[in-house]
């Protein structure tokens, strides 16, 4: 046997040659110094390449504490979608908690589960206030910008998140999404109302350290979670503005949109319900029937689903599915 070519050596190391050829190679390598050296080099390249590719993977969550967006374990949509989802969750939260409840929460400095918050915080905070309808009552972010090195670092993070969200579509959609959100949460006044209503609402408190959009508490926003920083003021302003708009989903549209959809994610099929929970219309896992989140109509082509687990899905006509036979 002549000297073995490199491709064959790698195929042999990868277990891609048949038993006969494998035996031939083995016996040849045993008596051929050149090939033996080539095999050793190939083994080194296989291992080295593997190591390098492993280095491509993200560092584990929490290792890089300086970046609020570092924990990336959970499923995330594109930054601008995440931003809208975060804005949506904040909007839900702020409107849902009455002012007293929130002021109390702010005073107690209640910290909430950091993970879903931080994953959403950075992109969300960069929604600029000028995109909001002029009826916004929030003070401009500059007036509440905190001082100190940590906050300056945070401000720089947020500036970088600005880059991610410099999209007109995102801003317009945020305003529209808020309108939908506010409409769907209706008259929920108490923070505890959600507790009995299942997973969809349980997710909400976890996104919510911030106080209500009142002037007094606005200035006290500077808090311990990423969401409580200055740009959150912008979002509160947006919420306050959209609270003035009330646009329910037309019933005929609602029944047309409800039904089953393929998600291409977990779970694979969801059912959009016409029933409402506090933040919005219910989403159920089709397989189990349990409610797992809520949905909103963005426009004719797009439905936004927010799962309590923290993920956000975009569904369109292409995702429509026939609901399976009832068991």
């Amino acid at each position, binding site marked *: 046997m002549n000297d073995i070519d490199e*491709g064959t050596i790698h195929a042999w190391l990868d277990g891609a040659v048949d038993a006969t050829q494998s035996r031939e190679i083995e016996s040849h390598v045993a008596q051929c110094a050149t090939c033996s050296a080539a095999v050793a080099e190939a083994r080194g390249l296989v291992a080295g390449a593997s190591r390098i590719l492993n280095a491509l993977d993200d560092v584990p969550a929490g290792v890089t504490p300086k970046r609020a967006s570092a924990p990336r374990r959970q499923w995330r949509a594109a930054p601008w979608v995440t931003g809208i989802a975060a804005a949506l969750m904040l909007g839900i939260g702020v409107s849902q908690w009455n002012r007293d409840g929130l002021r109390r929460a702010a005073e107690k400095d209640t910290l909430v589960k950091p993970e879903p918050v931080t994953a959403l915080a950075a992109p969300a905070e960069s929604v600029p206030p000028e995109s909001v309808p002029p009826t916004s009552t929030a003070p401009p972010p500059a007036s509440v910008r905190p001082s100190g090195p940590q906050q300056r670092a945070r401000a720089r993070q947020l500036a970088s998140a600005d880059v991610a969200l410099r999209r007109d579509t995102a801003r317009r959609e945020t305003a529209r999404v808020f309108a939908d959100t506010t409409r769907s949460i209706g008259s929920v006044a108490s923070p505890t109302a959600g507790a009995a209503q299942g997973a969809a609402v349980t997710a909400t408190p976890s996104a919510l350290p911030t106080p209500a959009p009142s002037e007094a508490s606005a200035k006290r926003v500077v808090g311990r979670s990423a969401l409580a920083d200055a740009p959150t003021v912008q979002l509160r302003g947006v919420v306050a503005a959209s609270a003035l708009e009330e646009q329910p989903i037309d019933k005929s549209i609602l029944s047309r949109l409800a039904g089953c959809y393929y998600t*291409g994610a977990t779970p694979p099929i969801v059912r959009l319900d016409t029933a409402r929970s506090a933040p919005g219309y219910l989403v159920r896992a089709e397989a189990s029937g349990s409610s797992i989140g809520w949905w909103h109509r963005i426009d004719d082509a797009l439905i936004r689903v927010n799962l309590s687990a923290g993920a956000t899905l975009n569904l369109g006509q*292409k995702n429509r599915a026939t609901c399976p036979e009832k068991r």
Partner: protein
Amino acid sequence: MHDVERLFREYHDPLVRYLTRRLGDRDWAEDVAQETFVRALRQGEMQNERAWLFAVATNLVRDDARKDTRRRRHLELLSAEAKAESVVEPPITDLERAQERALARRAIDALNERDREALLMREEGLNYNEIAEALQLSLASVGTTLSRARRRLVEAYEQLRDEGLGTREAL
């Protein structure tokens, strides 16, 4: 329905990892993976599921009409992140790991598309038949492709690392 769940359970994570390494952007990777599984649902029977999924995902990446916009935004994000990161001093191990990751990223980008894809698929456990099918290569050429890819990757990485060291010493 039961099939869908199984498909997802078995292949979603490796597919996302492959795509994340391929694209350097986890959000983009998740989007492509989602699109791939939606298509899988429509497909019905597949000869070789893993090869099919990786082939579709690979083609989606190549055809991604939004690739340029995404790439621009991705680059914007990267440079913005770089600026933001320069403010705070991370612990030493984070710094090393981040540097390794950046080096690895540049090294893998030095490969040509086919070599890169073949190598990343191999890392996710695809066998030679599956790689050949997914990338429309002849079975015989897979070994050569992988050997070339591995050599170029390691050489590129070492060269970049040495360049980096050289720069630091010169300062």
